[in-house]
């Protein structure tokens, strides 16, 4: 009745160890939890080595050092992170952080404005003026545009929420609540489908109750 595959047993025991937390915290769960943290860190380490360092640093350097030696520059800057563990030189860690922040900020400004601000507003206006969408399509587009504006008005704190701004912000709250409810529903269903997957694994692959 039970599976004969030792790996399936290991997976089942680990699943039960995590689920045992639903009863109360116990040593079985704590072992699984610590193992999970360790394995995830090891996995991230292997991924950083195999997917980032080997193809982008070691392979180019070993293939043609003369041409690719500039890659030593980011490697040396990255190595400065290690000085975090040397108290006397710990301030050197600010250099790779500064490079990361400078690059990150510089590279993100224009794309953020383009995708999160301009594109969002463009789409909202396009939906609200799309006559070809027909009666209801256009109505929902206009409603959606009103939703965007009222939601934004709720986050406008430069003026006290009085009069028209108060009305607009109140409508915005309603749109926000519908959005939060929808996100919540989606998240819950995502978690439930994971739970179903695990229970299905236990009953199908491990105990063979479901075939």
């Amino acid at each position, binding site marked *: 009745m039970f599976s004969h595959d030792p*790996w399936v047993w290991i*997976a089942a025991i*680990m699943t039960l160890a995590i689920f045992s937390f*639903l009863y109360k915290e116990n040593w079985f769960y704590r072992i699984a939890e*610590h*193992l*999970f*943290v*360790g*394995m*995830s*860190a*090891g*996995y*991230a380490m*292997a991924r950083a*080595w*195999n997917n*980032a*360092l080997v193809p982008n*640093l070691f392979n180019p350097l070993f293939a043609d050092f003369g041409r690719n030696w500039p890659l030593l520059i980011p*490697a040396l800057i*990255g*190595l400065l*992170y*290690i000085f*975090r563990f040397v108290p006397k030189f710990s301030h050197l860690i*600010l250099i790779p952080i*500064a*490079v*990361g*922040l*400078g*690059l990150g*900020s*510089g*590279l993100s400004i224009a*794309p*953020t*404005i383009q995708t*999160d*601000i301009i594109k969002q507003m463009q*789409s909202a206006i396009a939906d609200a003026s799309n006559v070809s969408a027909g009666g209801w399509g256009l109505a929902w587009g206009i*409603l959606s545009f009103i*939703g965007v504006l009222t*939601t934004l008005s709720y986050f406008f704190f430069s003026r006290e929420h009085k009069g028209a701004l108060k009305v607009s912000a109140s409508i915005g709250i309603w749109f*926000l*609540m*519908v*959005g939060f*409810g*929808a996100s*919540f*529903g*989606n998240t819950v*269903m995502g*978690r439930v489908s*994971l*739970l179903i*997957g695990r229970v299905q694994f236990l009953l199908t692959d491990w105990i063979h109750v479901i075939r």
Partner: protein
Amino acid sequence: MKQKLPLLIVLVLGIFFTIQFFVPSRASEVTYQTTLQWWLVMSSFAMVLALGSLINHHALKIKRRKEGWWNSWVTLAGIAVMGGLGILGGPSFRMGWANDAYTRLFLFVQAPMDSAMFAILAFYMASASYRAFRARSREATVLLVSGFVVMLGIIPFGAMLWHRIPDIAEWVMMVPNMASKRGILFGIGLGATATALKIILGIERSWLGGGGK
């Protein structure tokens, strides 16, 4: 000097790469691609910092025999085994047995624990939602109804109750939900841009440590 140099680096790189986006030339594109490769290399070394901190934390716990110290051995073993096998089985060493063990450990230990860990959140979300959803105000009622409709719309049971429920759920997702998400994204965009500018111009200095003083 300890703080001026990092601030100067942020200023120069920040301004350079903000302008780079608007320069439509081959050199600009090559600079962008090279920078992405450099960034990938540099940020990979941050993993050393993260792993070092984790190993340090658990090594100290073992050394000082703190409560549950033996669990720290499990974490350290997990890092060593998964990290070691992943590197040995990867493209740099290509050891078949290591790759096989790494894949099996991922599929039969890490992945099941990962999904089980997120699955138990379903129970906690259910109890949290009971407290949050007790419709005490009109806004809470709207949240309750919207969440309930979306949940019912996703599962076949919803369609069994009333065939229009999936359509209503889709409408909720595509109209009011989309409107609020667009508004929030707009706010996030403005906030992220303002923060990036503050960092580049040296107004935001908390990353230097010491509360920016």
